């Protein structure tokens, strides 16, 4: 009897055991899904590397080619001998002037316009058309902005070709993107914060000033940072409105330009020495490109520091 029971139990156990062997194992369907999963993952990885690879190549190549010429002296001396030698001081400072002045104009106007559109404007047809116009303006080619700047600032407003006219043109070009990205940043601030303020009697402006803006600063700065690179890199809008081929400048004096003067700019200088001037040593354009890259990174780095600071204060 006892022996019988043991046999029975053993058999039962074996049966359960054999059954459990096939439990949770792969079926044809799950094997196929696994295969697709691996394929997708690998493909995406390769595509990502393909994007990064050229970037590293470009930067590496630039540095390699410009190595013989890169030095502090290159940065702080003017081009000489018909731009076939010397440094990039005048165009470097010109680019900084153009970017800074255009941001000084575009940032307050863009941010405040976005505040109006996001916080005050009612959702009616006029607002919707304005929003649509902002989005579409962001897609206007820069050469069109250049012609607008030439007509409006240089000729009509009688600014002449100057840093001011060129910066305003750049500002017009960057405004729509700043407005769009600022609106997005403001929209990301939870409605509950606004409600909390309104219900203790805060006006819209008190709410915006004390809660909404401080909590969207990092997002707003991100939008502005992206525009720095764009403003520094564009050649067309400044070519008609304020940039010139050559100007000798006080070396090392950061106040050497007057905003009513014309200026050199890195992007245009690069174009000039690569295509317009014969017999330029090979390292010169590469060095100029590295300085342009470095200037953009420098301005970005400052903005990124701000952003990190503001983001660390934001938690919800």
């Amino acid at each position, binding site marked *: 009897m006892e022996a019988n029971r043991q046999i029975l139990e053993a058999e039962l156990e074996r049966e359960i055991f054999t059954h459990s062997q096939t439990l949770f194992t792969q079926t044809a369907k799950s094997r196929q899904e696994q295969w697709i999963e691996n394929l997708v993952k690998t493909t995406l990885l390769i595509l990502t590397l393909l994007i990064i690879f050229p970037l590293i190549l470009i930067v590496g190549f630039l540095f390699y080619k410009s190595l013989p010429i890169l030095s502090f002296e290159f940065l702080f001396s003017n081009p000489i001998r018909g731009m076939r030698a010397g440094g990039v001081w005048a165009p470097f400072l010109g680019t900084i002037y153009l970017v800074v002045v255009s941001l000084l104009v575009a940032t307050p106007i863009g941010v405040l316009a976005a505040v109006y559109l996001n916080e005050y404007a009612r959702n009616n047809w006029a607002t919707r058309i304005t929003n649509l116009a902002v989005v579409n303006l962001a897609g206007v080619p820069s050469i069109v902005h250049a012609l607008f700047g030439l007509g409006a600032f240089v000729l009509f407003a009688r600014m002449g070709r100057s840093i001011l006219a060129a910066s305003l043109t750049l500002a017009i070009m960057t405004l729509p993107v700043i407005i769009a990205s600022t609106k997005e940043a403001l929209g990301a601030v939870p409605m509950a914060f606004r409600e909390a303020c309104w219900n*203790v009697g805060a006006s819209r402006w008190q709410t915006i000033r004390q809660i909404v803006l401080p909590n969207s600063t990092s997002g707003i700065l991100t939008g502005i940072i992206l525009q720095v690179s764009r403003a520094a890199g564009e050649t067309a809008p400044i070519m008609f409105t304020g940039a010139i081929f050559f100007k000798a400048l006080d070396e090392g004096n950061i106040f050497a330009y007057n905003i009513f003067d014309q200026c050199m700019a890195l992007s245009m200088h690069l174009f000039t020495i690569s295509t317009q001037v014969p017999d330029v040593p090979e390292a010169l354009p590469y060095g100029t490109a590295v300085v342009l890259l470095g200037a953009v990174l420098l301005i970005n780095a400052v903005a990124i520091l701000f952003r990190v600071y503001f983001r660390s204060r934001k938690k919800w």
Partner: protein
Amino acid sequence: MNAGAEAKYEGNGGRIYSIETNRLNFWYGDFQALIDISISIPDGLITGLIGPSGCGKSTLLRCFNRVNERYGNVTTTGEIKIMGKNIYDSDVSLPELRKAVGMVFQRPNPLPISVYENIIFGARIHSQFGAFSKSETDGIVEQALKEVSLWEDLKDKLKSKATTLQLEQQQKLCIARLLPLKPQVILMDEPCSALDTKATHAIEELMSTLASRYTILIVTHNMAQARRISKECFFMLLGEMVEHGRTEDLFLSPQDPRTADYIEGRYG
């Protein structure tokens, strides 16, 4: 409930109402959310507002400090009197109105600043810059936190971010930040629905202690809660006020069949 409020309520001198509406109609665009609401909400008590989702309870609540108008295209007709004053009169200042009529929300919504700054926020925006000395603000913060019995828990955390507190503490803080404004009425829009039972109990207890000094109007989905804490109760359906009365009467012997169906859980 303390004796004073009880006396005010049942005294023979007639009842005192903090909020009275007269044929109040309200539209969001073309949609009529409130239809001919005429109610009187007694002073110094907890009054409950019940009804299924979308019946207009929250909308009605938001009419009482006119914060509805911040949500876009709305139209209001009729009359709302708070402490006897029609809040649609032309001389009514919205910041002053909202100071007197505070609101607590479903999800605790402390501002993303410190506990201290949260409490003092309301007082600051209603006064000139530099109107308070440090010791005055310290006193305001301490008193407000004591009133909601958070002082012991938070007195060493005044500088920490309010959004990092536990939910129960956050909700109490949201009540505490109204108190420095010396409100007459506190509107609560399902203040416990994001909280667990223990926290709900704590908030209800707090409401009872506050009820003697402030008129509290609470919207709730929780029948049991309405029964536990409110003295009077209003039942709304599809933008209309169906029935109101003392809470016990409303729950024990509802006059309208729709009320009976709702509190017995046949719809909701």
